[in-house]
């Protein structure tokens, strides 16, 4: 149906978006690349000199870099596992017939609307604080020693906070997908004597895989750049225990004001993000075409 005319019209319509995003990517990226080869500390203007690969050398050999790489990975995978598995289970539950469906749905999606800064502040102070937090009160009531979440299990705590915010999102998409499942198919399987578990694994799971892919893609985009939650709760610590790549770059460029090194980190992160993107896109592309 695509004529030459409509093709050129289509190009014309796509052009603004492509050009804008191109500019949004190329201009900062170009500047970042340029800075990454400069010895440039914001606090010492006029001292910029060509630095060669120094910034990259120092960034990549920084002991925090490896830690940050693994933390980023754990954070993304951890949250994905919790939200997708939790989301499937929750969607299964909410798909049943029960009283108060509307209210329950409103309550479950609420965390998605909370700003990351606010949710981090609330969790850190009112729940995880080892002296005045609600968990500490609970532990004491049970006769246990309060557990200091943010210093004993900092990354895990952050995974919990972030998962809390993203679980509703995953649940909603999976629930919508589940509701489109053909109930006749299920009933047919039931008549063939398939048990609940096999029905779940052979019918529900394949049906949800598309929705799950979408959840994974969108969440990964946001999870790679988790920042506010870390800044507010642990400042990347103790040590490097909860420093992810984004936070590390922040520490370099905005705490040390070392623009050159921060830029080098930015370039490294962009390359890594694109590797992730490449695999993710192939996976998504395959799944969405099907």
């Amino acid at each position, binding site marked *: 149906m695509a004529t030459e005319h409509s093709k050129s019209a289509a190009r014309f319509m796509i052009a603004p978006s492509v050009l804008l995003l191109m500019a949004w990517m190329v201009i900062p990226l170009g500047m970042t690349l340029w800075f990454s080869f400069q010895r440039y500390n914001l606090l010492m203007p006029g001292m910029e000199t060509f630095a060669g690969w120094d910034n990259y050398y120092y960034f990549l050999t920084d*002991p925090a870099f490896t830690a940050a790489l693994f933390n980023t990975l754990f954070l993304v995978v951890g949250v994905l596992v919790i939200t997708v598995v939790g989301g499937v289970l929750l969607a299964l539950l909410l798909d049943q017939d029960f009283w108060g469906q509307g209210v329950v749905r409103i309550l479950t999606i609420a965390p998605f609307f909370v700003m990351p800064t606010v949710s981090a502040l609330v969790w850190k102070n009112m729940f995880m604080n080892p002296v005045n937090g609600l968990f500490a009160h609970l532990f004491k009531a049970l006769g246990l020693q309060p557990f200091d979440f943010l210093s004993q299990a900092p990354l895990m705590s952050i995974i919990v906070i972030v998962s809390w915010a993203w679980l509703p999102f995953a649940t909603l998409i999976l629930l919508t997908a589940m509701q489109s499942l053909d109930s006749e198919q299920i009933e047919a399987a039931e008549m063939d004597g398939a048990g609940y578990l096999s029905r779940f694994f052979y019918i529900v799971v394949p049906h949800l895989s598309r929705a799950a892919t979408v959840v994974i893609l969108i969440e990964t985009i946001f999870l790679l750049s988790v920042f506010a939650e870390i800044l507010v709760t642990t400042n990347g610590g*103790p040590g490097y225990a909860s420093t992810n790549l984004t936070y590390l770059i922040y520490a370099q460029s905005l705490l*040390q004001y070392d623009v050159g090194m921060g830029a080098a980190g930015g370039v490294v992160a962009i390359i890594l993000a694109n590797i992730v993107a490449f695999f993710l896109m192939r996976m998504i592309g395959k799944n969405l075409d099907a």
Partner: protein
Amino acid sequence: MKSMTRALLGATAVAALATAASAETLTIATVNNGDMIRMQGLTEDFTAQHPDIELEWVTLEENVLRQRVTTDIATKGGQYDVMTIGTYEAPIWAAQGWLVPLEDMGEDYDVDDILPAIRSGLTHDGKLYAAPFYAESSMVMYRTDLMEKAGLEMPDAPTWDFIKEAAAAMTDKEGEVYGICLRGKAGWGENMAFLTAMSNSYGARWFDEEWNPQFDGEAWKATLTDYLDLMNNYGPPGASGNGFNENLSLFQTGKCGMWIDATVAASFVTNPNDSQVADNVGFALAPDNGLGKRGNWLWAWNLAIPAGTEKADAAKEFVAWATSKHYTELVAAKDGWANVPPGTRQSLYETPEYIEVPFAMMTLQSINSADPTNPTVDPVPYTGVQFVAIPEFQGLGTAVGQQFSAALAGQMSAEDALAAAQSLTEREMKKAGYIK
């Protein structure tokens, strides 16, 4: 739907156009400390005197504030007309020519009244570049009732050994009373402010005269080991996340026996509105080890005017007002003498009503006993008591602070933390070209 969309688009356009502000609006960046927030509430006095000047406040948490104003001034962003900066930034920024010198502050400003220890840190080439709003040192705040119960008496100038003994005697973990609360949250202005000041009294230093890092020395090892012992045995849980504010609420709710921190905290812990222990607080100088230096720091929050603002005159009017004797009286009249911003002017410590305030003289003594130009037992190439006045220090201090915070959380030993601190400091100093 369509008409709503159009209305919204219109509103957006109008709002975007309407951002042009009138000429004499001062944008002031401040830290969200109690004294600064009080100032916001008192600005009517200023605007009554200067009806042509409007004030816009940007109040931010300390770390966010520092990052925002530094980015802005270094890129000449020009978003602020008055900035709240610390004693660390003032000399560095002044040397860069980023600040407007504060001359001609009006007849009754009396610049010579500013305490010399504070003023010298804010002066560059003989000119004042930032006006102190309040200044602080650090001291021991302790619970007199618990001290009595423990059968001890706090001397005016305690030693670290006494602090250890008292912390052990006051701790009652069942009753949620922890002998000592200290900063543990990583940051050059958080745990490193305390630890660097403490290390001074142990004879340690950041660098020798050739800028070689000294974390591999015995003095630092003794400092960190003692700090960890104190905190692990007698400190509150979660200490590695505690900064000034967290400790303040712990102390105010009666969970700390002793707290060594900023002198400004004295007015908060003795204020019965906020503090459950207001009647039972005593003060003492920061501890020492008999080496001639005490473990107290020196800090001031100051108002400065970025070079390049078009409203320098109006900004100066405001800075003069906020740091004047008149402002002190204004606060005294409204909230009482205990709440005036402390530590900046000699005349305040000559005011009879103020001397009555229980922590007044201890604050003055603490401030006067800190010497930023000669902070350590052994000679050093830098100035600054709890910081090193070089641009690299913010990042460095925070990175080292992370290691010490990890040690406090039990993730690594004191030796490993010191070794990591040593190697990362060496790296940074090499990168920055101080050492080859």
